[in-house]
C-alpha cells in the first residue's frame, strides 16, 4: 500500500490523514476484486461445451467451415504467388486470365464460407448465452430468501452481465479461431518450407520472439488497464455522489474543494489513459517493424541468394515472392493464438463463477411430498419457534402464539427485536430452526411455498415497485387480472381517485426509485397490489414516513378496507394500528416479552408501557 501511495498523488488523498476529508468517497485500494483469469480446466470446458449440444448441427458445421477457412486463406496467398511466378513472369496472357479467373472463383468460395462461419459463430454464442441466462434466472428464482440476504447484489448481477459475456466470447471465438489460425499457420509453414526450407528456418526463429513480445505486451496492457479501471472507479463514484449530493455541496459551500479534488482525480485518470495508449504505441509499431524489417532482410538475403550464392545456398526469386505473400499468414496467428488463449482464460474465470452460482444448493427446499394448501380460513399458530440465520446466533426464541382467522396481530419492539423475521417465517421465506408454524392446522414444512404465498398478500416497508406502469405494478399480484378488476380493487380500497388523478392515471410510469409517485401513492399501489391478491392473510411492515394529514387519513381508511375480514400481521409503528389490534406481541431480542391487547398491556406497566411512553413523549400533548 505504501508503494502505491508514493506512486500517485490521488491515492495519497485516500490515506487517513486530514486531506482524506477533501475526498467525496472513500477509496480502498485493497478492495477485493474478482479474478478475471483462470487456468484451463477440462471439466469446465466440457460443461461449457455441453451447452452447444442442442445446437450440435450448427456447431459441427462451424468446425467444418473453420477447417475449410484455415485452408482457404493460405491457398489465396499461394495463388497470388503462383500467378506472379507463373503466367505473369512468363508473360503468358491466357495463363494470367485463367489464374485470375481461378483466383476469383476461390475468392467467391472463401467469402461465401466466411459468411456462414461468421453468422453461425455469432448465433451459436448467442444461443448458448441465451440458455445460460435462462438457467441462471431459474436458479435464482428457486433460491430461498436467505441466499439473497447473504449475497451481494453486485455479484449476482455480474454473473448475468460480465461473466456470461466472457463465456460468450469463449464459445463463439476461441475454439473456432484457434482452428482457423492454427491450420493457416501450419499450411503456410508447410508451403514455405517446401519452397525454401533454409529461408523458412530463419523465419521460424522469429516466432518465439513475436510470442514473447506479444505476451509482454498483454501483461503490461492488462496491468495498465487495471490502473485505469481503478482511477475510473474513483472518478465515477465521486461524480455520482457529487450529483446525488449536490444539495449538500451547495449548502456547505464545497464547490471549490470538490472541483479541485475532481481535477486531481481526472488528471490522474488522464495520465493512466495515456499510459495505456503508450503501451500500445510501443507495441503496435514494434509488430509493424517486425514485418517491415523482415521484408528488408528478405530483399537483402534474396538478392544475395539469387545473384551471388550458388549451390545449396542459392535461392529462387520466385520463392522470395511466395514468402512475401505467405510470411504474414505464418506470423499473424502467433499473436492471434496468444490473444485467444487469453480470451479462454477469461471465459474460464467467468464460467467458473457462473457455474458456482448454478451449483449452489439451496439450504432448503419444499419437501418432496409437500402438498398444496387448500383454501384457508387464516388461523395462524406458532408452536415453540426458534430461528437463527447463523448457528449460535438466535434471532427468535421460543415463539408461541395463536391468531384466529380474521384477527389482527400487531408486532411491537425495537429495531432488531425479530419482528420482520417473524413475519418472514409466516411467509415461509425461512424455515424455523425448531418448532412449527401452522396455518389452518397445516404445518408449513409439509405444504408448498407457492400454495401458501398465493393466499397471502404482503406490503413491505420499503414499498418496492417494479419499473412499468402503476397498472403493471398492481397487476403483479395476479397477472391475469383485467383492468376492470384492478379498478374494482381500487374502489374497494376507497382510493381510486388518488391514483387515477396521476398525470397518466394508472398508466403513469413508475420511474427510477419511484420519483413520479409520492410516498403515499407508492404505499397505496402496494396496498392495491396486496388487495388484488385477495389474500386470506395479510402481512404488513408498516411504513414510517410522515405523509401529510389528508393523505394519511385516506391511507388509514384504505388499510382498514384491506384488512377487513382477513388475518393480519402488522409490524406496527403507529399507535392507531396497535390500538385496534386483537393481539399485541411485544418482542425483545427475539423473545415475546409481553402479549395482550393495547389496554391490557398498558395496565401491566412493563416493556410496552415504557415503549408507549416514548411514543407519547414524542407527541405534542406532553
Amino acid at each position: 500500500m505504501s508503494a502505491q501511495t508514493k506512486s500517485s498523488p490521488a491515492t495519497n488523498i485516500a490515506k487517513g490523514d486530514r486531506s482524506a476529508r477533501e475526498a467525496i468517497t472513500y477509496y480502498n485500494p485493497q478492495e477485493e476484486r474478482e479474478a478475471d483469469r483462470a487456468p484451463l480446466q477440462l471439466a469446465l470446458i466440457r460443461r461449457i461445451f455441453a451447452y452447444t449440444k442442442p445446437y450440435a448441427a450448427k456447431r459441427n458445421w462451424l468446425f467444418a467451415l473453420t477447417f475449410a477457412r484455415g485452408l482457404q486463406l493460405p491457398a489465396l496467398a499461394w495463388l497470388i504467388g503462383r500467378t506472379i511466378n507463373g503466367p505473369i513472369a512468363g508473360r503468358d496472357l491466357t495463363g494470367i486470365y485463367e489464374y485470375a479467373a481461378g483466383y476469383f472463383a476461390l475468392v467467391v468460395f472463401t467469402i461465401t464460407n466466411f459468411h456462414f462461419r461468421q453468422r453461425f459463430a455469432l448465433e451459436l454464442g448467442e444461443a448458448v448465452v441465451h440458455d445460460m441466462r435462462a438457467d441462471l434466472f431459474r436458479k435464482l428464482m428457486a433460491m430461498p430468501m436467505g441466499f439473497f440476504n447473504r449475497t451481494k447484489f453486485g455479484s449476482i448481477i455480474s454473473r448475468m452481465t460480465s461473466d456470461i459475456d466472457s463465456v460468450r466470447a469463449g464459445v463463439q471465438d476461441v475454439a473456432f479461431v484457434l482452428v482457423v489460425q492454427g491450420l493457416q499457420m501450419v499450411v503456410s509453414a508447410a508451403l514455405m518450407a517446401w519452397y525454401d526450407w533454409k529461408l523458412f528456418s530463419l523465419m521460424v526463429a522469429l516466432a518465439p520472439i513475436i510470442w514473447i513480445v506479444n505476451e509482454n505486451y498483454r501483461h503490461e496492457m492488462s496491468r495498465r488497464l487495471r490502473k485505469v479501471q481503478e482511477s475510473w472507479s474513483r472518478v465515477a463514484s465521486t461524480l455520482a455522489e457529487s450529483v446525488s449530493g449536490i444539495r449538500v455541496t451547495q449548502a456547505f459551500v464545497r464547490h471549490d474543494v470538490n472541483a479541485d479534488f475532481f481535477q486531481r482525480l481526472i488528471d490522474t485518470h488522464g495520465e493512466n489513459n495515456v499510459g495505456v495508449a503508450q503501451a500500445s504505441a510501443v507495441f503496435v509499431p514494434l509488430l509493424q517493424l517486425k514485418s517491415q524489417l523482415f521484408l528488408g532482410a528478405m530483399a537483402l538475403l534474396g538478392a544475395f541468394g539469387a545473384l551471388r550464392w550458388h549451390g545449396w545456398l542459392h535461392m529462387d526469386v520466385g520463392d522470395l515472392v511466395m514468402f512475401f505473400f505467405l510470411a504474414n499468414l505464418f506470423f499473424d496467428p502467433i499473436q492471434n493464438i496468444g490473444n485467444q488463449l487469453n480470451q479462454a482464460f477469461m471465459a474460464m474465470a467467468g464460467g467458473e463463477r457462473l457455474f458456482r452460482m448454478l451449483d449452489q444448493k439451496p439450504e432448503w427446499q419444499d419437501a418432496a411430498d409437500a402438498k398444496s394448501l387448500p383454501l384457508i380460513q387464516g388461523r395462524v399458530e406458532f408452536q415453540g419457534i426458534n430461528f437463527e440465520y447463523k448457528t449460535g446466533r438466535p434471532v427468535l426464541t421460543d415463539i408461541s402464539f395463536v391468531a384466529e382467522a380474521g384477527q389482527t396481530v400487531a408486532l411491537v419492539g425495537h429495531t432488531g427485536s425479530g419482528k420482520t423475521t417473524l413475519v418472514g417465517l409466516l411467509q415461509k421465506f425461512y424455515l424455523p430452526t425448531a418448532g412449527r408454524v401452522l396455518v389452518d392446522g397445516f404445518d408449513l414444512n409439509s405444504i408448498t411455498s407457492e400454495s401458501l404465498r398465493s393466499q397471502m398478500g404482503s406490503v413491505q416497508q420499503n414499498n418496492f415497485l417494479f419499473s412499468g406502469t402503476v397498472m403493471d405494478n398492481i397487476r403483479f399480484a395476479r397477472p391475469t387480472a383485467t383492468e376492470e378488476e384492478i379498478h374494482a380493487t381500487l374502489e374497494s380500497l376507497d382510493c381510486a381517485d388518488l391514483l387515477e388523478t396521476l398525470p397518466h392515471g394508472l398508466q403513469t410510469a413508475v420511474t427510477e426509485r419511484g420519483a413520479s409517485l409520492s410516498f403515499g401513492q407508492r404505499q397505496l399501489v402496494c396496498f392495491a397490489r396486496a388487495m388484488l391478491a385477495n389474500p386470506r392473510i395479510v402481512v404488513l411492515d408498516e411504513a414510517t414516513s410522515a405523509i401529510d394529514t389528508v393523505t394519511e387519513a385516506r391511507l388509514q381508511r384504505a388499510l382498514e378496507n384491506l384488512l377487513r375480514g382477513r388475518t393480519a400481521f402488522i409490524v406496527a409503528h403507529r399507535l392507531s394500528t396497535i390500538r385496534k389490534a386483537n393481539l399485541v406481541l411485544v418482542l425483545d431480542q427475539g423473545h415475546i416479552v409481553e402479549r395482550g391487547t393495547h389496554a391490557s398491556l398498558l395496565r401491566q406497566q412493563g416493556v410496552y408501557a415504557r415503549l408507549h411512553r416514548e411514543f407519547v413523549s414524542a407527541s405534542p400533548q406532553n
Partner: protein
Amino acid sequence: MSVLKMLGTAKLTSADERYSTSELVRRLLALAWKFRKDCLLSVGLSLVLLLLGLAGLQMLGVVIDVIRHALDPSQHVPVYPFGWHPPDDWSPLQIVTALALAIMAQAILRAALTYSYNMVTARLTQGEIVPELRAQLYAKLQRLSFSFFDIHGSNSIFNRVTGDVQNTRLFVDGVLLQGLNMILTLVIYGIFMWRIQPALTLACLSVSLPLWRLAHFYSARLRPGYLRNRELTDNMILLFSESVRGMQTVKGFAAEPHQIRRFEAASDEVSAQQRRIFWDLSIFTPGTQFLSQLSLVILFAYGGWLYVQGKIPLGAGLVVFAGLLQQFTAQVANISTIANSVQQSLAAARRVFEVMDTPVEVENKPNAIKPTRLTGQIVFENVSFGYTPDKPVLKDISFEAKPGQIVGIFGMTGSGKSSLLSLIPRFYDPHAGRVLADRKDLRDLDLDAFRRQIGTVYQESFLFSNTVAANIAFGHPHATMEQIERAAKIASAHEFIAALPHGYETVLGEAGVDLSGGQRQRLALARALLLQPPVLILDDPTAAVDARTENEIVSALREAMAGRTTFVVSGRLNLLRRADLILVLDDGQLIQTGTHEQLAHCSGPYHETALLQIMDLDEEGKAA
C-alpha cells in the same frame, strides 16, 4: 420533485433545438483550435508516415525489378525512384544492398514516428481535451441550481461528464484528424498510382465506389439495430436486477413463474433481434472483403496484361499497386466510420455545451460584502418566487425571524415550504421582494461567506460513502478532530459513532456500515453544526423515521437549536410546538402565523392536523 413536474416537459426538448449544427461545428472547431499545436503535430506526423510508407513500398518494388533485371537482362529496366540513380559502377548486388538497408532504416524511422504519432494523439485527447472538458463541466455543475438536477436526472448528468465528453473529444481526433488523414491518404495514394498507370488506377479504384456505398448502407442499417439491441438488453438486465432486488415481493406473491416467463420473453426478444444483426454483419464484413479482393482480381487480369505489354514493371508497378490498393480500400471503408463519428460527436457536444451554457442562477455581485458573523436575524419582505415566472410557488411572503428564534413552517405537500427554505441560503433569488439577513439584502452579500453561516439538515440526509469524520467535516475539510467531536456531541451522535467498528474513521455506504435513519439524521445534524452557524435550517428532518427515532432526533435538536435562529419545516407537531413563530403556508401564501397555542385553537390546516395527531392520545387517556 414539484420543480420536475413543472419544468419537465417544457425544457427536456430544448437541448436539440438550442444549437444549430453550424454553431456546434464552429464551437468544436474552436475547441480544436485551442489545441492547434498538437493537432498540427499529429497531422504533420501522419503525413510524414504516409510518405515514408510509400517510399518503402517503392524501394521494395525496385529491389524486385533490379534482381529480375540482373538475372534476366531481357526484363524491364528498373526505374529508380525519387530522382535517385545508383552510381554506374555499382553492381546490382550493391544496389539491392543499399536499397534493402534503406528499407530497414525507413522501417525503424517509421516505427519511431508511429510511436510519437500515437503518443501525441493520446496526450492530446486523453491527457488534455478530456480532462479539461470534464473539469470544466464538473466545476460548472457544482454551481447549477437544483432544478437543473431535477429536470435532467442523475443518470443523464453522469453520462454528460463521462461518455458525452469522450464523444465530444471524438470530433477532434475521430473527425478532424482522421478525416484529414483520410483525405491525405486518398489523394496522395491516388496521385501516386495515377503516375504509375492511370488506366490501371481507374480500373482498380472502380470498386471504391461500391465499397463506400456498401459501408454507408450497412452502417445506416446497423446503427439502429445496435441501439435497439442496447435497449432490449438494458430492459432484460433491468428485469433481472429488479427481480433480485425485489425478491421478497416476488416470493411474497408467489410470482416466480410469472417472472421467469417475463424474463425468458425478454431474453428471447434479445436473441431474436440479435439474429438480424448477425445476418447484416455476416453480409457486410464478407461483402467488404469481397470487393477489396475483387480489386486484386482486376489488378491481376488488367495489370498482368499491361505487364505483358511492357507498360509497367513487375516490382515498381504491380507489387507496389497491390500494396497501395489494400490501404486505399481500408481508407474508403473508413469514410462511414468518420461519418458516424460526426453524428455521435455532434449529439454529445450538444449535451456538453448545454451544461456549460446553463446560466448559474445565483451569482455574486462584483462588490459583494463579506459578512462578519451574523446575529441570525432573517426578514422576508413581500417575497414572491417561482421556478418558472408564470407559476409562482410563493406569493408575497413577509415575516421576521429574530436572532435565536425558532420558526416553524407548516403546510400541505406542495404548499411551498421547501421553496421558502431554499431562499434563505440563497439557492434561488426571489422574483419580487427581498430576503434580508441582519438588514442586508442577500444579493449584496458574498454568497459563499454567507452560506457558510447557515447549517442545513434535509429530510433524507445524503451522506457520502466516506468516513464518519469526513462526512461531519464536509463543510470544513480541515476541521480538527476536537471540532468534529464537539459537533457530534451537540448532535447526540458521539456515543453511537464511538461504538462503530472504527469510530470516527468508519466508512459509510455501500461497502461500509449502514446507519439507521435516526443515526443518519444525527450525523447530518453534526455536519450542519460543525461550523457553529448562527442560522440552522431543518427541512422536515423527522419525516422518514419512526416515533422512537423521532424522539431521539428531537432531543438532539433541542440542544442544537439553542442560540441559533432555526427554521424548521415539519408536519409533526412535537417539533413545531416549540417554535416561537409558526408560519402556515397554503398554496404559496402565508395564511396564518402564530405560536402552537394560538394556531391550535384557530380553525385551519394546523388545527386539523393537531386534532388528528392528538386524537390518538386523547383516546389513550380515556382507555387508561
